[in-house]
């Protein structure tokens, strides 16, 4: 079946089996390999993307279900080549080591900051609690998100695509 999504602001389409998982559609059919996967049971969160602006485990949705929706992957975060503050924060605060959970963490952080521009440490930990990081012990991820909150551009523009959903 033909599946069309708007991904990182661009309309993309591919012919896939109905059973194709969204994460495979993104990685294998649209060649956006920044979205990773690490389990089979919706536990690890390496596959998190923004789906109509909200974090989603893309291993737990069919590509078919996503048809017609808006998706943001890590590749869409740096609008116009300029890093999103969460990306810069992860660099400044050593928020990643292997970089495998990083894309999912970045997107969840972006959604959190869009909804809550000044989250507490606990709110950040809560927001990322569906995503496993095996390297950082989380402290520097929390700091990186705080960095992004404190270094947000003066204007409230965000780089994600959100809809009213």
């Amino acid at each position, binding site marked *: 079946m033909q599946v069309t999504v708007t991904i990182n602001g661009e309309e993309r389409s591919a012919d896939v*089996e109905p*059973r*194709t998982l969204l994460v*495979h559609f993104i*990685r*294998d059919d649209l060649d*956006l*390999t*920044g*979205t*990773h*996967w*690490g*389990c*089979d*049971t919706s*536990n*690890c969160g*390496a596959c998190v993307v923004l789906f109509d602006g909200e974090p989603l485990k893309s291993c737990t949705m069919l590509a078919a279900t996503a048809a017609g929706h808006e998706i943001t992957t*890590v*590749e869409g*975060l*740096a609008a116009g080549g300029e*890093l999103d503050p969460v*990306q*810069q924060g*992860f*660099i*400044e*605060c*050593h928020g*990643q*080591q*292997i*970089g*495998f*959970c*990083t*894309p999912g963490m*970045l997107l969840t952080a972006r959604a959190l900051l869009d909804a809550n521009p000044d989250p507490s*440490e606990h709110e*950040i*930990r809560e927001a*990322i*609690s*569906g*995503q*496993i*990081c*095996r*390297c*950082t*012990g*989380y*402290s*520097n*991820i*929390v*700091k990186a998100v705080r*960095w992004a909150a404190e270094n947000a551009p003066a204007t409230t523009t965000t780089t994600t695509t959100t809809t009213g959903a």
Partner: protein
Amino acid sequence: MSTVQPSPTVGYGSMRRKEDPRFVRGQGRYIDDLKLPGMLHGAVLRSPLAHARIISIDTAAAAAHPKVKAVITGADLAGLGLAWMPTMSQDTQAVLATDKVRFQGQEVAFVVAEDRYSARDALELIDVEYEELPVVIDARKALDADAPIIRDDKEGQTSNHIFDWEAGDSEETDRVFAAADVVVARDIIYPRCHPAPLETCGAVAQMDPVMGKLTLWTTTQAPHAHRTVYALVAGLPEHKIRIIPGDIGGGFGNKVPVYPGYVCAIVGSILTGKPVKWMEDRSENLLSTGFARDYIMHGEIAATSDGTITGLRVTTTADHGAFNATAQPTKYPAGFFHIFSGSYDLQAAHCKVTGVYTNKAPGGVAYRCSFRVTEAVYLVERMVDALALELKLDPAQLRLKNFIRPEQFPYQCKTGWTYDSGEYERAMRLAMEIAGYDDLRREQAEKRARGELMGIGIAFFTETVGAGPRKDMDILGLAMNDGADLRVHPTGKAVLGISAMSQGQGHETTFAQIVSEELGIPSADIEVVNGDTDRTPYGLGTYGSRSTPVSGAATALVARKVRERARLIAAGMLEASPDDLEWERGRWFVKGDPEQGSTIQEIAMAAHGAGDLPEGVEGMLEDTCVYNPPNLTFPFGAYICVVDIDPGTAKVVVRRFVAVDDCGVRINPMIVEGQIHGGLAEGVGIALMELIAFDEQGNCLGGSFMDYLIPTALEVPEWELGATVTPSPHHPIGAKGVGESPTVGSPPAIVNAIIDALHDSHGVDHIDMPCTPGRVWDAMQGRAEPPQ
């Protein structure tokens, strides 16, 4: 603490990582990201049973699947001489089972198909008939007379016994114990757990039939060692094998062994003439790849009544699973377990380890650990706390009383190690100061009076890392040395090739900083190449905290060789004698005339330039080095953990964790601290929730992330770190290695804290990990059970 200070342009210090710009953009290059023209996909059929004879395998239906290109069984591999492969411990392991399956999840057949979904579908079309056999699950029963023999494939193997190994003086230890005022014993299990890197294992194999060259993109922490293994296994000429790891999504020891799936991908590519990708799923990773620990220990500690520890002895049953595939230096089947006398000045110590086969997955890899150091440290730190309970002494004071003193270094311990350097009391006192130890004890007393459960746990560890000296250590006969090659280009930019393989440790950054420190070239001007065996010098890779101790040393030394060559060239440029030149970072100048000098960049251009060079000096500015460590390094640290336990539910919360690490000189403190954070979180996981358990039939109960639990951001506290610096005297830059210290040191601190919380009120004097609420509650009721 962790936000980067202004980046140093030259030398050591916290600086942003060079890797990160690609990672934050999702531009890391992991194995599953690779897509080659015509690439096929492999999938492994695994045994549902822990021990069974294979009666028949019918692959006809799978082979008839329209998208299937090949179905490979053990019989097919046997025809090619590839059904078995050597393990890192000089045992053999089935690539695809021929006679029997020996653990649940063992590889039975391999399907190659046009896409990954079809490959999975075809697995369901393979019909395997098994005859079930009795299983050995409890390692303590593996040597029973009636235990079924698991490795009947091995000639002369008449039991499940693998090895007996001892260290220390048994008789002297017995004498010390006989003379002791107090002897305390504990049965201590370090249960089977799993490194579970977020990226599973996998490979893309591409055999070029025209050139006869195999390229293998694969998840390996030891690319050069793997290349040699493939050469030995498959009979391929080693120069026709190229290993490219790319970016690795975490290793922690899991990506040290060679797995059957890699070999199957290679065979698949040879048979089909196409590139073949194999990526295991999470269950396959947890069920079949290198587990860690699984040591069943009986420890005894001897002391005088005033708390002077005099002796330690331990007997251990080591569960190695169905194939002895531990990754240990050859002479040390129990790894470096004989570091178990820890940080204390003892009169005698002795250990005996017996390795056995069971119907469980093979492995015994060092999960963020240098070869069984984790088990050793856990044992001694639990035993010291048990002694403190017995003598009613404060566990911090007991440790302070027994530490090896600074003037005793280099310290010859009773089991054969020579500790390089240490200032243990300084680290311990710093940890107590950060924790506010006396205040914590006061708070605990108040809470106890109210019936609240709060515990304070201490662990002090000494590791032995950076394997190792070639006279003592090898893996599969390969010396555990590492190479580095450094080329400074005409414009003063440099490229460094190393044999270490980063899995997130930030080698591209820290190794550039080492060169920068030695040559004065800005780190930004130094490219570090690691992994690709066609582009890097030989070496045994990254595990056992050996990158900085071995590869880091090679890097410093090769930079110094280049610096010396630069001196000769500069002497020519400055028309001075080399002996009259003096080095300041980045520049040789004439002694007493600092204006007269040449920068390393000027020297690099001259080295490549047209003019004459001093007689006997080779052109260009490059060199190579192989580092053979004269000794291992001995990082140490003091950890203090505070836990609160809900008396009604037995749920443990790690409220605080203080970690003072001494890893010698710190190249990039930000990266060092990041390593410590991550290792502490893994330690919390091991102590509280990570467990690969089995039922009586040998079914694995930890085969997914629903069952194998890894801490989230809500189970770990904000880490409180401290540092002391005691350089290693024999290491070129005084560094000791750090990646594994936190995983080694944190589990005993956490378990000691839990027992500290429960001892007075509930009489708990031991609990085995993982300390899940249910297991802690059982212990509180006086019926603690070891994990199954």
